[in-house]
């Protein structure tokens, strides 16, 4: 990339998004808020995958530059698993809401003995 944007720019960006997602997961009592934090964390992981794919994925073979797409393929798998995780997580949230009439995670402590 010509304009002086390096791998480090993308890594720091994804690190900031990860930190915000981690704070969201740790500080929320709302179960849906926790799931949104997990989505932020998965997005930051994907930025890392694509940044390493873009800046380290090319393989120079005798002058010609062949490009490997492994990072992008892993990013697609992460997106697929994020979709499955969101669907299951929100189904669990709805089931909790039906039983407890709240989605405050500190109220659902029946299993904590």
């Amino acid at each position: 990339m010509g304009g002086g944007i390096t791998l480090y720019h993308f890594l720091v960006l994804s690190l900031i998004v990860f930190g915000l997602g981690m704070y969201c997961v740790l500080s929320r009592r709302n179960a849906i808020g926790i799931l949104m934090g997990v989505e932020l964390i998965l997005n930051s992981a994907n930025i890392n995958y694509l940044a390493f794919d873009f800046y380290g994925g090319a393989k120079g073979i005798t002058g010609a530059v062949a490009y490997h797409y492994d990072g992008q393929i892993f990013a697609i798998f992460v997106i697929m698993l994020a979709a499955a995780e969101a669907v299951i997580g929100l189904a669990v949230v709805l089931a909790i809401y039906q039983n407890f009439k709240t989605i405050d995670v500190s109220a659902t402590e029946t299993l904590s003995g």
Partner: protein
Amino acid sequence: MLQQIIFYALAALTVGSAAFTAFSRNIVHSTFALLGAFMGVVGIYVLLAADFVAMVQLLVYVGGILVVTIFAVMLTQGIADVTVSNREVGVIPALFTSVIGVAVMLYAVVRTQWHQTPVPAAAPTTYAIGNAFLGDYILPFEVASLVLLAALIGAIVISRHEAKE
């Protein structure tokens, strides 16, 4: 120069929206701020020459996950009590843990000499990704469809009403 302006604009959109998602006390506002974060990440993907992944992100995250999240927010909250349901506990420990974790990782990221190759010219990626999915990655591709089927059935089983009479 233009690249830098675009990158910083997208980064500002992403980080600003993510911060609003993390710090807003209103869960509905958090959910809508998540839209900005996802759109900013789509732009970042395009900047990284990943056109196919960017479109997948747009379709799956914005078109799917965000809509399902908004559905869940609307179904579980009375709109009237949205503000009280997002109470935070342990803000100081959460902030402390996050800042410490980010600081350690920032140190590691900045200090490491990453292996970098010459950046390739941007080219369409869909053809190569499709070939990889039906070639080297055929087994994970098939397992992924199984995972999605299991998630589909699991979501139905978990969330349906048990009719007990």
